[in-house]
């Protein structure tokens, strides 16, 4: 039995088509390819049926530990996903469509993305949003480049409390540009405000921070915004969208460009992707936004409709002068984000954030009460916090993993001198029982 190839033409049809084209064989169609350019090897396994395939994929997935209890975050969070998110984003008309270049037959995707942009604006307190970027990390880098464009300057001040991954991505993106990146390391696990403000100057394009920080602390950014604005720099903040059910919006605090990762909004962990990056800003910077933007308009008879707009910013028009090279984005994940937010709704997001806060506060209390353990964060936290242990955090994590608990992220892997610090995440999905078990195991390991 031959394997699946999803090519429908029957041998008889292939013959008819070749005759119509006027060639003798399919091989003839490849005659433009000189013989010496032909593949030297193509050693791939034999194919299989979808049934054998799924059995294979299941056994592969079974090689992952199935029963790990996560207290890890680091940018990706284990949140509930309403069943409706899968069902609705799983509509074939959504997931098997391309970019909505032909608006009349793509109003579904276009209206949904307009609604998404609105959700992001309302969540962040900003005026405009694009239709998604790849992920939170690359969105952070795009925000950096946007700030450079907007200000025409070439220096970035980045808080060391920003995720080490996001900071690395900015460095990678800008490695070949003439941009100076100044990172101000944390002080006692909190942003060094004075240091950050001191580093700002009239050559600074942006001050870039994260809220909550990598260590979980929540801060009011208003003072930093004022300081940045005072020197003509922008304040860029990366935020955790679920926290915005509880935390003052970046817009309220004076942030100029808000970015973040949308995974927590209805996208599964999925070993790190796909999720989506969001970016929002104030209206005056709209032409400097990277990526696709959906705009409202009307048709010939005045009916409301939606289109890709301001495409003159984009690569397919502006080529090397575009605001970004991004073409495919993470549309379906953004749609999931929208459906998630609409499902949870206005009050629900507040409840969800409260629930995260409440669970994490409980965990902070029981873990902080373990002898020798202390909470590092001086500031309030949301659903992540940092503990100082009387031992190397990496060793503790290794030990607890054996009991199928991922106890947290050892900060020392990313921050020199913080080897005894553990960043612990507690979402609404962690039960009290699991938290108590973590406390027990942690206590036992110290």
């Amino acid at each position: 039995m031959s394997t699946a190839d999803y090519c429908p033409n029957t041998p008889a049809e292939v013959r008819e088509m070749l005759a119509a084209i006027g060639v003798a064989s399919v091989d003839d169609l490849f005659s433009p390819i000189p013989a010496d350019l032909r593949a030297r090897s193509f050693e791939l396994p034999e194919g299989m049926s979808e049934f054998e395939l799924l059995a294979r994929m299941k056994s592969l997935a079974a090689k992952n530990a199935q029963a790990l209890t996560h207290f890890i975050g680091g940018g990706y969070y284990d949140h509930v996903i309403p069943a409706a998110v899968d069902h609705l984003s799983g509509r074939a008309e959504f997931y098997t469509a391309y970019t909505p270049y032909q608006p009349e037959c793509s109003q579904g995707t276009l209206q949904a993305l307009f609604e998404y942009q609105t959700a992001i604006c309302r969540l962040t307190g900003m005026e405009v949003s694009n239709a998604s970027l790849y992920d939170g990390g690359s969105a952070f880098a795009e925000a950096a480049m946007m700030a450079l464009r907007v200000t025409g300057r070439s220096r970035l001040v980045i808080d060391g409390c920003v995720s080490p991954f996001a900071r690395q991505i900015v460095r990678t993106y800008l490695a070949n540009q003439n941009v100076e990146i100044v990172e101000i390391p944390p002080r006692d696990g909190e942003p060094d405000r004075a240091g950050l403000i001191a580093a700002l100057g009239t050559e600074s394009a942006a001050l870039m921070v994260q809220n909550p920080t990598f260590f979980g602390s929540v801060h009011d950014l208003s003072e930093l915004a004022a300081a940045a604005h005072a020197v003509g720099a922008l304040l860029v903040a990366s935020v955790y969208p679920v926290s915005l059910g509880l935390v003052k919006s970046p817009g309220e605090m004076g942030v100029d460009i808000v970015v973040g990762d949308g995974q927590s909004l209805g996208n599964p962990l999925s070993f790190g992707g796909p999720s989506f990056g969001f970016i929002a800003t104030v209206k005056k910077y709209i032409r400097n936004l990277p990526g696709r933007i959906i705009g409202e308009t009307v048709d010939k008879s005045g009916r409301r409709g939606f289109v890709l707009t301001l495409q003159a910013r984009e690569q397919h028009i502006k080529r090397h002068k575009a605001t970004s090279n991004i073409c495919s984005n993470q549309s379906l994940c953004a749609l999931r984000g929208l459906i998630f937010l609409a499902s949870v709704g206005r009050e629900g997001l507040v409840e969800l954030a409260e629930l995260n806060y409440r669970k994490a506060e409980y965990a902070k209390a029981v873990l902080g009460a373990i002898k020798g353990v202390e909470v590092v964060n001086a500031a309030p936290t949301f659903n992540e916090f940092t503990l100082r242990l009387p031992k190397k955090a990496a060793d503790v994590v290794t030990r607890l993993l054996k009991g199928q608990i991922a106890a947290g992220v050892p900060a020392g892997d990313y921050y020199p001198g913080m080897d005894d610090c553990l960043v612990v995440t507690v979402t609404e999905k962690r039960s009290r029982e699991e938290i108590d078990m973590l406390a027990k195991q942690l206590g036992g390991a110290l």
Partner: protein
Amino acid sequence: MKLIYEQSRAGRRGVRLPAADVPQATPFPAALRRTDAAALPEVSELDLVRHFTGLSRRNFSVDTNFYPLGSCTMKYNVKALENAAPLFAPFHPMTALLPTGEKFVQGSLAMLHDLGGLLAEITGMDEVTTQPMAGAHGEMTGIMLIAAYHKAKGNKKKYVVVPDSSHGTNPASAAMVGYEIVTVPTAPYGDMDLDAFRAAMNDEVAAVMMTCPNTLGLFNPHIKEICDIAHKHDALCYYDGANLNAILGKVRPGDVGFDVIHVNLHKTFGTPHGGGGPGSGPVGVKKDLIPFLPLPTIRKAEDGYTLVTDNPASIGRTANFFGNFGVMVKAYAYIIMLGREGLIRVSEQAVLNANYVMSQLREYYDLPYDQTCMHECVFSAGRQLKNGVHALDIAKYLIDQGYHPPTVYFPLIVKEAIMIEPTETESKETLDAFIAVMREAAGLAQTDPEVLHEAPVTMPVTRLDETKAAREQNVCLG
């Protein structure tokens, strides 16, 4: 249709959340607390379902319409693949980065590693990173790798050369990495003008970016020569793999001399496009560039798969974790399901279908580059323009007939371009029906152009005012 916000009622609830099983906490500090909840929709689950189901029905898609969108490889997205990805949904990427954490995600790491191996064999490269999250991201990553290579060698490089037929992402990606762009024109025979290319080359050129078959659907028989010329200047050759569907099993860019390649898993390897994403753009490189690959990389050791997280030569990171893992699961499944024979048949049938469509429409539309094409063919509505009919008008007419239009106005070098990529998963009957409508449109262009100008009339909206959208910039409901 109303916006979801326009259906909100204060206090209406959608999904309910789990009950709290821990004591009440001290309230979150008022000073940091949001005063007004974000004005998200307040709808019931039924309204939510009706809204998004209704929106979905306002889309054309592969599952509902023939979608011969050139350069996009809108092939059938196998349903079994949709069932494969959720098997890997529950696993946290940070697990792999914990001390000894790799042991707990051997399945995920094996998939990433094996996918890289398969792609390396398919493209003829030595190693692959799966981190880039789309084609353009792959291009940028690839150009960063090239920059790192030159930096390490002490080469002073300034330019990236691209043909004028290239996709916009190519120059945009190179520019984002900091290079200046040199554009080489296309010769009348449809390939990059070789003489102009030679003239453009010098020792300050970091890389040449090529798509082959190019965006005209033509295979450039001189690509080896082009690679050789580039290499003489220690310029590296970048292969944009967006059109790899045409040459699976026939040509491997690595064999020809390309140093860096990205592939679009969401094109060649059958993962759905999601209304614009997510895609996945793994990058393959030749040996010399391996040291610069982004971190973490995956190594297969005797006792399992491990991560390399430290390597000073690396360009660093281009994504938070491992890229669009869920997309890769589908592409991996696609490759092992089709296998060697299946993938060869893919390119053969894709090329057959494109040439068939070309043969059946050549009398009706101008064919600016009239040669055997690969997986797609590019017509021009130049002839129709004489009657005032644009490529766009034909596109809109197709919508009324239930066909997603081909790509129009791309590549930019073809006036009134109509770029048709049928893909291998369409049958002759579907092509014949499409051909009949395209012929009808050509006829109408002569007899009744007004019908084409008015199209579409069967959609929820007629043609939309794009100028108004750009002027008013209503990108968010007030």
